C-alpha cells in the first residue's frame, strides 16, 4: 500500500517538475512561431537599422528595435547603479551588523517591498516622483529614464538584498574570526573580507535583480514617457522593449507584420533575460572560492 502511494506521489512530483520545463518550451515555441513570419518577411536587418520603431508610419513603416534596446539598457543600468550599492549595503547590515531583533524587524519590510504591485509604484512615480524630478532639474516633464531607473531599482532591491544576504551569511565564520583576530576592525572585516568572499553570490544577486529590471513593464510604461527617439541624456524620455510591446500589443491587428514584429521584440527580451539569469545561475553555483 505504502509503496503505491509513494509511487503515485513520486509521479505527481515528477510531473510538476516537468510541467515547468513544458511551460518554458511552450513559451519559447509561441515566441518563435509568432516572430518567424516577421523575421522571414523583413529579415533581421530592419530590426537593428538606424531608423526608429514606426509601424503606423505616414509613409513606409519601419521596425527598428535599436532605440528601445538602448532605452532598456539605460533604465536597467541606471537601476543597478542605484540598487546594487544600496542593496548590498543593506544585505551586509542585515547579515553582519543588525541585532537579531533588528533583523526580525527589517526582513519582513523587505518582503513587503517585494510585494508592492508594479502599477502602484508606477502611479507613485507618475504623481510624486515625476513632478519632483521636473522641478529639481527644471524640465518640462519628469517622465524620464532617471525616473524609471529609480523605481525599477526599488523593485530590484528585495531580490538583491535577499540573495546578497544569503551569500554573505554563507561566508564561513572562520574568515571573520581570522580577520578580527588579526586586529581588523568590524568595518575592515566586512569590506575587505566578507563581501569579497561572497562576491560571486553578490554578483549573482545583482544579475537576478537585473533580470527583474529588464522585464519590468508596468512601471516603466507609466513613468518613462515612451518616446521612440534615442534619448539625449538620462533626463530624457525613453521607451523600453517591454513597454514598447505593452503599448502596441493591445490593439494591433492580429497576424499583421506589426504583430509579428512585436513578437520579435518579445523574443529578444526573452533571450536577454534568459542570458542574464543563466549567468547569475552559474555564479550562484560557484560557492566561496577559498577552501577552509
Amino acid at each position: 500500500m505504502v509503496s503505491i502511494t509513494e509511487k503515485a506521489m513520486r509521479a505527481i512530483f515528477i510531473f510538476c517538475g516537468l510541467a515547468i520545463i513544458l511551460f518554458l518550451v511552450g513559451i519559447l515555441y509561441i515566441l518563435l512561431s509568432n516572430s518567424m513570419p516577421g523575421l522571414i518577411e523583413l529579415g533581421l536587418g530592419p530590426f537593428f537599422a538606424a531608423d526608429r520603431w514606426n509601424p503606423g508610419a505616414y509613409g513606409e513603416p519601419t521596425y527598428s528595435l535599436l532605440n528601445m534596446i538602448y532605452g532598456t539598457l539605460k533604465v536597467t543600468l541606471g537601476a543597478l547603479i542605484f540598487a546594487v550599492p544600496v542593496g548590498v549595503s543593506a544585505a551586509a547590515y542585515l547579515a553582519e551588523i543588525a541585532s537579531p531583533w533588528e533583523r526580525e524587524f527589517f526582513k519582513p519590510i523587505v518582503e513587503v517591498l517585494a510585494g508592492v504591485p508594479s502599477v502602484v509604484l508606477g502611479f507613485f512615480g507618475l504623481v510624486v516622483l515625476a513632478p519632483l524630478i521636473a522641478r529639481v532639474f527644471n524640465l518640462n516633464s519628469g517622465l524620464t529614464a532617471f525616473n524609471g531607473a529609480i523605481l525599477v531599482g526599488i523593485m530590484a532591491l528585495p531580490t538583491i538584498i535577499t540573495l546578497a544576504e544569503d551569500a554573505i551569511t554563507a561566508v564561513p565564520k572562520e574568515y571573520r574570526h581570522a580577520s578580527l583576530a588579526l586586529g581588523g576592525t568590524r568595518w575592515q572585516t566586512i569590506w575587505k573580507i566578507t563581501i569579497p568572499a561572497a562576491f560571486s553570490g553578490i554578483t549573482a544577486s545583482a544579475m537576478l535583480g537585473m533580470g527583474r529590471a529588464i522585464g519590468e513593464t508596468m512601471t516603466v510604461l507609466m513613468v518613462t514617457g515612451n518616446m521612440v527617439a534615442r534619448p539625449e541624456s538620462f533626463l530624457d524620455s525613453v521607451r523600453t522593449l517591454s513597454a514598447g510591446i505593452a503599448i502596441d500589443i493591445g490593439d494591433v491587428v492580429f497576424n499583421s507584420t506589426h504583430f509579428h514584429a512585436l513578437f520579435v521584440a518579445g523574443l529578444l527580451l526573452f533571450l536577454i533575460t534568459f542570458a542574464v539569469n543563466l549567468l547569475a545561475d552559474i555564479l550562484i553555483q560557484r560557492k566561496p572560492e577559498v577552501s577552509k
Partner: protein
Amino acid sequence: MNQKRWLTVLGVLLLAAVMIAAGCGGPAEEQAGEPVEEAEETNGEEAVQEPASIMLGGSDSEVNVVARLAEEYMNDNPHVSIAVTGGGSGVGISSLIDGNIDVANSSRPMKDEEMDALRDNHGEEPYAVRFAVDGVAVLVNDANSVETLTVDQVGAIYRGEITNWSEVGGDDREITLYGRQSTSGTYVFFMELVVQGEYSERKRNMAGTSDIVEAVIGDAGGIGYAAIGYADEDGVKALDIAADQDSEAYDPTVLENVTSGNYPLTRPLYQYMAGKPEGAQLDYLLFEVSEPGQGIVLEEGFYPITEADREFNKNALQ
C-alpha cells in the same frame, strides 16, 4: 519567531494605514452617479415582427457607440438581433466586400478601389450613412499663453519642425509632444488630417487618452490631443483651431462650433453597406440618426450629425 514576524508586518501596515488616514482626512468626495434617463416614447409597433439579424463590424473608434446604439435598439425591437465587432475601419470594409458582415463601420470614407471591389463582388452600389461626428481637441497646459493655432502650426509642431512655444507666439519654452500609439484610431486621424507626414520621433506615447491629459496637466510645455470630451479637465485647455491662416479660429468646447463644422478637426463616422438598406437594417439606421439615437451618440462622447450629413444620408435612407 514566525509570530513575531507577522506582528511586525501588521505593525507596518497599521502605521501605513494611520498615515493614510492622517493624509487624506478631508471629507470623501461624493461621486455623482451618472443619471441614466431613458425617456423614450414607446413606438407603436405595428410593423411586422419578422426575426432579423444584422452584423456590423469595423472601426474601433465606433465600436462602443454602435454597440450601445444596437443595445438600445434591441431593447425596443427584440425580434432583431445585432452583433457589433471591431478590428479597424479597413477590416470592416474588407469584411463587407467579402460578404461576412452587413454593415461596415468606418471612420474614413471608402476608397475608390474598395468601392469597385464591392461592386464587382455584390453587383450592388455601395451606400453610406454618417451617423455621428468625431472631434479631436488639441490640449495645452493652463499656464500656456497660446490660445490659438492653425491646423498647419499644429502639424508642424507634431512633425517636430516647431520645437519652442515662442515660435507660435507663446513663452520661450520647449514643446513636449504627447500622443497615442500607432494602433489608435485617433493616431491615424490626427496623422492624416493634421500632421500630414511622420510624427516627430520625440513624441511621447501614452497608453491612453486620459494619460495624455494627465501628462499635459503636469507639463507647462506639453501639447496633446484627445477626444473633445476630455477638454474640460482642470489644468488643461483646448486650443482654438483655425483651418488656415485666413480663417477664424474656433473653440471645440462650444457645441455649435463642432456641429456646424466650423471647428476643423472633426470627421464624420461612416457606415457602409452593399445596396440600399431596407427592412430591419433601414429601421436600425433610422434609429441611429433619430433624436434618441443622436442622444446616445452625444452620451458616448461623439457629436450629433450636421445638416450636411443629413443631406448626405438622404441618398441611402430615403
